[in-house]
């Protein structure tokens, strides 16, 4: 118990902060911060597996998040029948062609020795393949995008409950990670960082511009929800009764019936959005706990020990007969799959998919700050980092505003400097993140909750 005292203390402080937000700002804000903290925690767990367990640097988190989001769209949106009949066959045929191309390349790779000739043959296959696929798919894509471009203009999805997308998102992200890992994992650490960063940008470019699949920058809105809708809740009897019971002390103070009814309505409207957010919190909490149990088990298993051995001394681990390449690939895929789950969860919560909003600052570098600040190699640390950094990221604006008002208290309200500073309050979050990261790296390089390995 005493050993874990700092963990308990850190988490209590974190929860206390969120509850303070609930009391002083509103429970709605507190819960939305809490939900995004949970999603961030899933992302940091993914990044932590790669960086903390195996020492693999992955700056492509944004790409996997976006793929998870794409999975949410492809699973939950109803299929657009007209689009399928207009261009579906072309798309399917192109898909077969792509598979054929990959198989052909693999065949050549296996069949012939490495030589200049082989490289040329592969290059020819790929270039010819791309040209043919473009010719086949172009009419299909055009036909699909022409069908009601303002409303659909894409193939739609499978029309399944969105919750399945959490698994599919993991599969998508894991699949991408497998391909990237196959080609890029041999690179040195900083090259791997740059390569993954750039590949994630390519993924975003594709998602943004392949309108037939993702609707691109036109966004997909109104995705199905796993939780009830506020409007429906507000008309359900049991929910109104519940709210009445919760607020009975306040309501009983009001004697006038009409006023009481109005107050109750207000409570119901507020309560409904809090209730919906609570539903999401429950779902997300389940995911976080399952993942936490699994990752903790993995960390203390022989496999986790092997990963640490590989991280700390690759050559020695290799000499002991551990297959470093295979294990690196495995952990790269696993970590990315977890990030994919988070991406799907994020889109599920928002109910919309906006490819334009995926930016490396928010989805790659911020997650890295979370992992490093929280404590890489320690799952509790990574989750705490997700909570603390996201909390700061959101609350930086109010804190910044407070600081600006404090430091410029002597100035007139219309003073140019004060007005300018108040306008730039949103950017104080970058400053806080940067300074926080630099301080942690300098004075507590292992994070708030450092990695602690006990041998049992």
């Amino acid at each position, binding site marked *: 118990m005493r050993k874990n005292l700092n963990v308990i203390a850190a988490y209590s402080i974190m929860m206390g902060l969120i509850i303070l937000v609930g009391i002083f700002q509103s429970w709605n804000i507190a819960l939305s911060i809490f939900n995004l903290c949970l999603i961030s925690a899933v992302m940091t767990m993914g990044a932590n597996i790669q960086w903390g367990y195996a020492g693999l*640097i992955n700056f492509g988190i944004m790409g996997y998040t976006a793929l998870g989001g794409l999975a949410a769209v492809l699973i939950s949106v109803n299929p657009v029948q007209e689009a399928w009949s207009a261009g579906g066959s072309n798309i399917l045929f192109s898909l077969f062609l792509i598979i054929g191309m990959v198989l052909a390349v693999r065949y050549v790779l296996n069949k012939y020795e490495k030589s200049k000739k082989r490289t040329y043959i592969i290059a020819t296959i790929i270039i010819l393949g791309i040209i043919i696929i473009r010719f086949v798919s172009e009419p299909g894509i055009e036909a699909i995008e022409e069908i009601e471009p303002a409303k659909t203009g894409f193939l739609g999805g499978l029309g399944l409950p969105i919750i399945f997308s959490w698994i599919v998102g993991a599969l998508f992200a894991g699949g991408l990670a497998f391909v990237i890992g196959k*080609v*890029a994992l041999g*690179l*040195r*650490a*900083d*090259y791997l*960082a*740059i*390569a993954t*960063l*750039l*590949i994630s*940008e*390519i993924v975003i*470019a*594709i998602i*943004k*511009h392949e309108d037939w699949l993702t609707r691109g920058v036109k966004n997909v809105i109104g995705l199905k929800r796993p939780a009830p809708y506020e409007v429906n809740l507000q008309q359900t009897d049991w929910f109104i009764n519940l709210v009445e019971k919760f607020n009975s002390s306040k309501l009983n103070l009001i004697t006038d019936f009409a006023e009481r009814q109005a107050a109750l309505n207000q409570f119901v409207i507020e309560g409904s959005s809090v209730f919906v957010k609570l539903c999401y919190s429950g779902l997300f909490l389940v995911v976080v706990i399952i993942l936490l149990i699994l990752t903790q088990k993995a960390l203390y298993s022989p496999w986790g020990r092997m990963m640490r051995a590989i991280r700390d001394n690759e050559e020695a681990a290799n000499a002991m007969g551990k297959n470093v390449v295979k294990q690196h690939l495995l952990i790269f895929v696993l970590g990315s799959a977890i990030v994919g789950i988070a991406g799907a969860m994020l889109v599920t919560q928002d109910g919309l998919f906006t490819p334009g909003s995926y930016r490396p*600052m928010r989805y790659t*570098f911020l997650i*890295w*700050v979370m992992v*490093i600040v929280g404590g890489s190699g320690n799952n509790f640390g990574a989750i705490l980092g997700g909570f603390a950094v996201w909390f700061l990221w959101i609350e930086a604006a109010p804190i910044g505003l407070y600081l600006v008002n404090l430091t410029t208290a002597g100035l007139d309200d219309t003073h140019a400097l004060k007005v300018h*500073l108040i*306008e*730039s309050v949103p*950017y*104080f*979050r*970058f*400053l806080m*993140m*940067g*300074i926080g*990261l*630099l301080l942690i*790296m*300098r004075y507590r*390089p292992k994070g708030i909750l450092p990695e602690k390995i006990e041998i049992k």
Partner: protein
Amino acid sequence: MDFVNAIILLLNYIFVPALAYGSQLALGAIFVTLIYGILRFANFATGDMMSFGTMFTILFTWYFQSLGISLGVFPTALLAIPFAVIFMIGYMLLIDKFVFKYYRVNKSPPVQLAMVSIGVMFVTQAVVRIIIGPSDRRFFDGEKFIIKAGEFKEMTGLNEGLAIKSTQVLTIIVTLILVSTLFWFLNKTKTGKSMRAYSDNEDLALLSGIDPKKIVMITWVIAGILATIGGALYGLDKSFKPFTYFNNMLPIFAAAIVGGIGNPFGAFLGGYVIAFSEILLTYAYRKFFMYILPESMEPGGLVQLLSTDYKFAVSFSILVIVLLYRPSGIFKGKVL
């Protein structure tokens, strides 16, 4: 005549813009490569450092404009750049003293330094946005075109016009001067030679009495000059927006690695490789083929290899291919 038209078309839409864009990338890439070669880490704050320097250029430009100082046909920014460079160098030396030095002295692994540079990236980005704001700013003044498309058509009687912006010519000339001075410095002067020696083999360099503090300081000074001028030229040619500068970090990295990281000459050429391939692959060649092919063979579509949306993706794909097949770059990297 059609043939000449076709050539002018390519010059106007591909060659001149790519040359200017490539020069801007090249300056950034040399900056990345110098930091990598001498301080031995991938600097993720590159784009934001460039925007920091550009910010000072803009502030000084505004100041000079308010004083009524101008350079006539040249942009006022040219006058502002030297002052901005001084501030930029000061900022970089400050960062080095308070942030990077600690890790260098402790001989931390390069990955840790790269992480630290992410912290610097956040801070620099915040400072730039707090001081000048995130919006798009143009600070170009003076004569906009050297040759206007209409004038060119009248002069030559061709169908195609050739427009050359003064910022494009300025970019190319300044880049050439700067880069040739840099190469002269690295290859001919004693300090430059000791920098190369330090980059090649740190221990040997230290043994032969090279002062590492001096080397590091000079590296930051050169980096400050490159970052400010590269950023200012990009801002003059297009416009200044902090987010764009952050994004430009990616093609700049691509250029540095394609050329062979740690090799300034490779980075210089890498900038052009990236710029030309981005523009060549995303240009719609329809009009070009209309000029050179007989009418019966005219193409129906746009004859565009990739849509312009994938401009960035092109440079990244080149980078990934280079990384996989020739990780040391086109010109052997890691020797300065």
